[in-house]
């Protein structure tokens, strides 16, 4: 039902549902996301590259619910094969994508016959809008005592995010963490007003990382530069040779101003199903397939 209502939500808002390939010649080079190989091709780690190519071709509101494959990601909240909901809006930015997420979740709450005060594993979580927003800079200064925007340290960032910052979020409310350091921009554009900050935001509810939103980067040179930096790091540290997604880079130049977001559907179902284990929402995880 969650899936049905989600599709209905996007249809009602004028989004086109698309399907993009799962077996692809290249994925976005990212140090910590390792794709599975399929006879010289790769299994898709995210539909992002194809959906952006569709945006560049003129489709302005798209969504897709599809499977993604990421090597080495297995845990209570991770399965190497998982379901992702991604949607893109031309003429929008990352903040609009967060509004969409708030609306989507509240629509699901209503259609599922729930109240905005949901019970998640014995904890009451109040989903009433708007959800609290905090910048990465403020969250880290408060919970970890340093500013990752002024002095980026990726390893320390990841560790402190998990061990200090996420535990500092109010357990009874969702948290929107925004304005990531430029070093962790990924495919998001830098803030025109502050080049140390990327227009990237993430939604957390009940210790679940739910969604990752960007104001999409439209500068093909900057995107290529970032990809090449990731590729160099991967070759140096992991001795992994990675291809540059050439057709995607060609499309970046034609991207409209747009916002995009990736939401973990399994995590959403876990939230409404009051479970912290992905095994409860996926019929056959890798260890029981």
């Amino acid at each position, binding site marked *: 039902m969650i899936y049905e209502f989600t599709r209905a939500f996007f249809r009602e808002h004028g989004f086109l549902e698309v399907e993009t390939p799962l077996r692809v010649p290249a994925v976005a080079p*990212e*140090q*910590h*996301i390792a794709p599975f190989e399929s006879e010289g091709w790769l299994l898709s780690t995210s539909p992002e590259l194809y959906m952006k190519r569709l945006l560049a071709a003129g489709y302005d509101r798209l969504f897709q619910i599809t499977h993604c494959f990421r090597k*080495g*990601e*297995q*845990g*209570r*909240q*991770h399965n190497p094969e998982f379901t992702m909901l991604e949607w893109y809006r031309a003429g929008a930015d990352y903040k609009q994508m967060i509004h969409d997420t708030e609306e989507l979740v509240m629509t699901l709450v209503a259609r599922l016959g729930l109240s905005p005060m949901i019970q998640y594993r014995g904890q009451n979580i109040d989903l009433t809008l708007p959800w609290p927003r905090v910048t990465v800079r403020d969250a880290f200064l408060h919970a970890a005592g340093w500013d990752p925007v002024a002095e980026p340290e*990726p*390893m320390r*960032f*990841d*560790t402190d*995010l*998990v*061990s200090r910052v*996420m535990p500092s979020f109010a357990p009874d409310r969702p948290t929107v963490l925004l304005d*990531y350091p430029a070093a*962790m921009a*990924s495919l998001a554009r830098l803030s025109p007003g502050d080049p140390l900050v990327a227009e990237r935001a*993430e939604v957390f509810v009940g210790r679940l*990382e739910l969604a*990752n939103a960007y104001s999409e980067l439209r500068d093909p040179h900057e995107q290529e530069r970032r990809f090449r930096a990731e590729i160099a790091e991967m070759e140096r*540290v*992991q001795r992994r040779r990675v291809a540059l997604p050439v057709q995607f880079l060609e499309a970046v130049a034609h991207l409209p101003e747009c916002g995009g977001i990736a939401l973990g559907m399994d995590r959403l179902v876990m939230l409404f199903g009051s479970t912290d284990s992905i095994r409860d929402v996926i019929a056959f995880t890798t260890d029981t397939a």
Partner: protein
Amino acid sequence: MTIEISDVHKNSKLLIDSIPYNVEDADFMKPGKGRAIYRLKLRNLRDGSTLDRTFHSGDKVEEAPVTARENQYLYQEGDRYIFMTTDTFEQHFITEQQLGNKRHFLKEGMVVGTLMMGDEPIDITLPTFVELAVVQSEVTTKSATITPQMKPAVLETGFAIGVPTFVKEGDIIKVDTRTGTYVERVGTKK
């Protein structure tokens, strides 16, 4: 032997600063396209103390070189529990701290699987079920009802357990060693 942190799972045995640990729990976190973070809850296999450690993807850890052997529990001496390796007849001891709750289910003569690091026993695997005698329980005057009611009892090992009201002193019951709970009665005192 060095292994990748991503190969570590619950019940892996690791050597950290030359001390053997059991991985009680392994939490995998990977927020926002970042590095994978592994938060391990470790139990020191020598003194039973716990340790929390965080690792990152790409980290390597040392696996404790353990072998599985069969050991027979002989007797208790103070806070030491004496075991004998069944194929070599060598005797070893494990402390009360190392055994933790497992000591409540040991019966003299019982054979258990043991993980040994060289000559040092570091962890035992109890059989899933063990049969123990009830040495103390109250007599209840309530008549049988539809819902099972549990009353407190004490087993021959000194372990306190809940049992159904029909169980009497002298009865032998089967206990699930994983949960420390009553399974069924297997023998009655005549």
